[in-house]
């Protein structure tokens, strides 16, 4: 990045400082700025080093060890923890659960979010109020919300049983049946996070120039065709952004699962992040937890890199 500084005598270009003229004062000034820069950045950098970068290195080391986090001896076991994961039925289940949860939670959040955004983009009164209501659950504690929904899913006295009763369907025992627990978690997750997608989509819709629609109208395009040929393409960059951030967020969804099902029943809601926690802090098996954490990290990294790739293309394209 090239930036011109205050007196135009010193220029930083690609990280190198070029001093034009040899005013000693300006060099002194520059050095003073370097010191100030370091001082301003230092706390942040030290914290990142201690609690973000170093732990990543440490995590790799832990993943090659067998350790109960108490004994002074850490046993080096090479790749045994990874072999364990490859063979472990539970871990396979965890990966399938993670895929199921991610696809469903992201898909429904984005789809419903888009529909809500399209609606709130109409000239309706109170739509800002509605936007606030829809967005509110995003900001509420997942732990507390999970408890509220556990009550809602109570098969006999819950709100869900009541609503299903209106259409004469009897409520399943949501949180205690392996086939219903994950749908229940997904419902809660979508309820809580759909508002984020809606708000971002809405901002995207409002940024679409009106004359594009007018032009399409002149061409005789009907509502559906205008949606297909103007709205969707204009929304695609923001949809992509939402898709990626939503996927990354679902990978980190922990509090709802911990509170509502603790990964159960019979591992039916055990996802990667929950497995990492469970292996580490329930089974006190640092090595396996670290190995699973690395799998989680690599997955997220791949998705982030794909996004960066596409974002770059978008810049060229736009």
């Amino acid at each position, binding site marked *: *990045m090239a930036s011109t500084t205050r007196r135009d005598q010193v220029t*930083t270009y690609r*990280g190198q*400082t070029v001093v034009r003229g040899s005013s000693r004062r300006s060099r002194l000034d520059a050095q003073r*700025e*370097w010191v100030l*820069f370091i001082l*301003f*950045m230092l*706390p*942040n*950098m030290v*914290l990142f080093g*201690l*609690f*973000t970068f170093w*732990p990543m290195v*440490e995590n790799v080391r832990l993943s090659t060890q067998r350790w109960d*986090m108490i004994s002074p001896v850490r046993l080096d076991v090479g790749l045994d923890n990874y072999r364990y994961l490859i063979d472990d039925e539970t871990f396979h289940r965890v990966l399938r659960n993670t895929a199921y949860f991610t696809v469903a939670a992201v898909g429904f959040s984005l789809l419903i979010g888009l529909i809500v955004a399209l*609606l709130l983009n109409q000239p309706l009164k*109170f*739509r800002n109020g509605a*936007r606030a*209501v*829809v*967005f*509110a659950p995003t*900001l*509420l*504690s997942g*732990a*507390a919300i*999970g408890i*509220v*929904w556990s*009550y809602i899913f109570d098969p*006999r*006295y819950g*709100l869900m*049983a*009541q609503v299903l*009763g209106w259409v004469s369907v009897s409520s399943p025992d949501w949180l205690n049946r392996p086939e219903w627990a994950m749908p229940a978690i997904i419902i809660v997750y979508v309820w809580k996070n759909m508002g*984020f997608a809606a*708000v*971002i989509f809405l*901002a995207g819709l409002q940024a679409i120039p009106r004359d594009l629609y007018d032009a399409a109208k002149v061409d005789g395009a009907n509502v559906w065709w205008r949606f297909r040929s103007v709205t969707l393409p204009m929304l695609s960059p*923001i949809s992509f*952004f939402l898709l990626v951030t939503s996927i990354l967020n679902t*990978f980190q969804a*922990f*509090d709802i699962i*911990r509170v509502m099902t603790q990964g159960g029943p019979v591992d039916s809601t055990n996802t990667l992040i929950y497995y990492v926690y469970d292996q*580490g*802090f329930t089974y006190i098996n640092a090595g396996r937890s*670290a190995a699973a*954490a690395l799998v*989680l*990290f690599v997955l*997220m*990294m791949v998705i982030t890199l794909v996004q960066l790739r596409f974002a770059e293309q978008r810049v060229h394209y736009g």
Partner: protein
Amino acid sequence: MGRLSQEHQRRLNLAAGYLAMALIVLVVGLPVWWMISGSLKTSREIYTFPPDWIPRNPRWSNFRDAWQSAPFDRFYLNSIITTVAGSALEVTNATLGAYALAFLRFPFKNVVFAILLAALMIPGQVTILPNYVFFGSTVYDLIGQSWVNTYQAIILPGASVAFGTFLMRQSFLGLPREVLDAAKVDGAGHLRTLWDVVLPMARPVIVTFGLISVVAKWNDYLWPLVITQTENMRTLTVGISSFYDLEGNTQWGVVMAATVFVIFPLLVVFVFVQRFIIEGLTSGATKG
């Protein structure tokens, strides 16, 4: 006749729009109402089917019972301490870092940029175990006592910030050049410029990021769950979940009253600040 039916169609669409909007607000709001009405129900009312939508005799004592059956005053205190300290550190780090990136000369700025970007890609959830080991064994080896179950351990891993630094740098760069130059002409140093010129002008973005940070810290769950061990160190989110583990689903009225403790402060704050948060988030998404 054509015009009339067009007008008719327009009204029909409008009515459908309002209906759909009301439905969405209802679906989103109903669980929150269920929590509030549940918190005011007696056990008898809880176990009535079909349920009452509005409790007939609001049982306010659920709140007293909840408050007394776990140290919620302590949970509140812990949440306030860790949220305020954590967010203050985050906002300070973001502001200083953004100022440095935007206005200060430094030969290795690119490297700093790359480090921040890399940090952005490592989510805190992936590093809980090694961080736990750090506060347990490493700190113990260094100073002879473990920091597990302390405030500093809850706060420190969340005190560094990459997203906020980028967000603020972007907004600092958009500040009017003339005002900054005028400060320089007046002989203001960088600290003065930051404090007297940049901070007042950039207040909206600082408030927005501060709010996002406060919400995240208040709701944080996994790390406080792992790093706290005794009841008196638990934050509200961890405290409520262990309270629920104990009470189970027998005392829904009292449990709902307890969840109100956690959610109510944020709901109240949200009513006043939702516009800042939504605008902050959407501007980040649409411009980025």
